[in-house]
């Protein structure tokens, strides 16, 4: 293919500017010595100091990170297992499973959120009714038991929702790797005396790894960037960072939030640079080795 001319380069630059302009604004105004986000009032680090003293924001940050990490970890393990299970199924049940699996990915977030919220409310109510009924039964009274299975939405329902929308992405990322897998490899390991678990761990898992890592990254990105589903399933007690921002936006967002997002952005940027550098170094080493042999 032909290389890009000056015009296509300019186009790329403009679209990237469009994508990054709001982020630049946030970063610049996190150092602004004024409550306004439009007028420059001089350089300050006040918002960073205030951020460290803002309990609500830090708690929301903690919830966000905790739910994203836990959901990603659970989804990666469960999704990999499910993908292996799916690929061993016959065609018809597999297609049925894959169709249901794709529902959370294709459905609008708001529908996923609303439907899970209705389920949680419904289940909480049903369980509360059930425990109320249990408490009136003779044996519960005679055994002096008091049941309370009812629940409100909170961290657990938030986590369940995140796991539910993360798993499909992991499955979709792992399945192609399973398709490429040579079944003879695992057979060979078994013939050489490996147990099923060892064969899986030493032979199959390394082959699947790129897909699993890919799925993990997508799941984490989806979790940490999610607002809509969390908004409907977290209830009124728990709040993620996005929910905190949404509540703030109705008034005017304090620049502390700018400071926090700048920190998060820098953290992610550093992480990606490190990953990139490592990859580049590995590639160079591989090239040098290839030259030597």
């Amino acid at each position, binding site marked *: *293919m032909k290389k890009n001319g000056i015009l296509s380069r300019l186009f790329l630059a403009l679209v990237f500017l469009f994508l990054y302009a*709001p982020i630049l604004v946030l970063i610049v105004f996190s150092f602004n010595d004024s409550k306004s986000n439009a007028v420059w009032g001089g350089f300050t680090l006040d918002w960073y100091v205030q951020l460290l003293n803002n309990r609500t924001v830090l708690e929301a940050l903690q919830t966000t990170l905790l739910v994203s990490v836990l959901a990603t970890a659970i989804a990666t393990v469960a999704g990999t297992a499910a993908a292996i299970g799916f690929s061993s199924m016959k065609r018809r049940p597999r297609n049925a499973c894959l169709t249901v699996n794709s529902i959370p990915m294709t459905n609008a977030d708001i529908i996923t959120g*609303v439907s899970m919220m209705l389920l949680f409310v419904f289940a909480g109510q049903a369980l509360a009714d059930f425990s109320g009924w249990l408490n009136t039964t003779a044996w519960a009274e005679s055994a002096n038991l008091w049941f309370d299975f009812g629940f409100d939405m909170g961290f657990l329902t938030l986590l369940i929702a995140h796991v539910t929308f993360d798993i499909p992405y992991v499955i979709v990322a792992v399945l192609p790797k399973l398709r490429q897998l040579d079944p003879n490899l695992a057979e060979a390991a078994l013939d050489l005396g490996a147990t099923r678990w060892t064969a899986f761990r030493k032979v199959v898992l390394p082959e699947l790894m790129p897909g699993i890592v890919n799925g993990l990254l997508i799941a984490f990105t989806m979790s940490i960037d999610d607002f809509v589903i969390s908004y409907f399933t977290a209830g009124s007690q728990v709040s993620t960072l996005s929910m905190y921002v949404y509540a703030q936006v109705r008034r005017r967002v304090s620049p502390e939030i700018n400071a926090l997002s700048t920190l998060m952005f820098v953290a992610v940027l550093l992480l990606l640079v490190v990953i990139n550098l490592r990859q580049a170094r590995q590639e160079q080493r591989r090239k040098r080795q290839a030259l030597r042999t």
Partner: protein
Amino acid sequence: MRNKWIAAPYVGWMAVFVVAPLIVVLVYALTREAPDGSWYLTAENFAGMAGYAAVFARSFLLAGIATVVCILLGYPMAYFLSRERGRLRSMATMLIMLPMWMNFLLRTYSWVFLLERNGFFNTLLSSIGLPKLDIINTSGAVVLGMVYNFLPFMVLPIFSVITKIDNRVIEAAQDLGAGSFQVFRRVIFPLSLPGVLSGVTMVFIPSVSTFVISRLLGGGKSLLLGDLIEMQFLGAAYNPHLGSAISLVMMVIVLVCMGIMNRFGEGEGEAVLL
């Protein structure tokens, strides 16, 4: 390694947390609550839907415009990126995904500062002698917010499809005498269509159902489907039965649209994000 039972826990999970919620939505949509607290079967929820035809039309129109703009911006971007060599190309996916790591609400909200009456954009305009524009709190701002937020979902699948095109196919076309425009029109573009289709799905669905973007950038003036649904569940107009019915209708329309579109694309409906 063949063991289909290892998927059993997840199949159970899907039944409880994917299928059951949708059934609950269906039950809510088909019922109403009587004053005495009991539920009765009814089609009232759907009968009342006609009053929201304008909201449906506005949502689908704005989401449609946003999707078209995303194709117009995203396709050339993906194409040009795939023609780059070296650093920029290998980092392209990362550069496009990076903004997604910054809070979605904050990114959207910072457009308010850029577009405000006395914001950055208008200051720029008036400094070169042009009149100020009132962009914020219009439908235009809502479309801009949609394009901004969902453009990566258009670029990534197209980029991933184009980079996977076998170079020999292109060389073959060139050997047979095709010019660069002809190579694009007859080879690259048809082969990249599956990416465009999954991009369209991934931009249109979140756009048509958003309530955050219209709330933040539209000033709550132009009500969209998402706003309508949100209001029925967590807002002032609390009525989960009506909300479920609206969700259901929206879901069906979207599924039908996507079904028709994928028929055109010869059934290449698989989502390719990376």
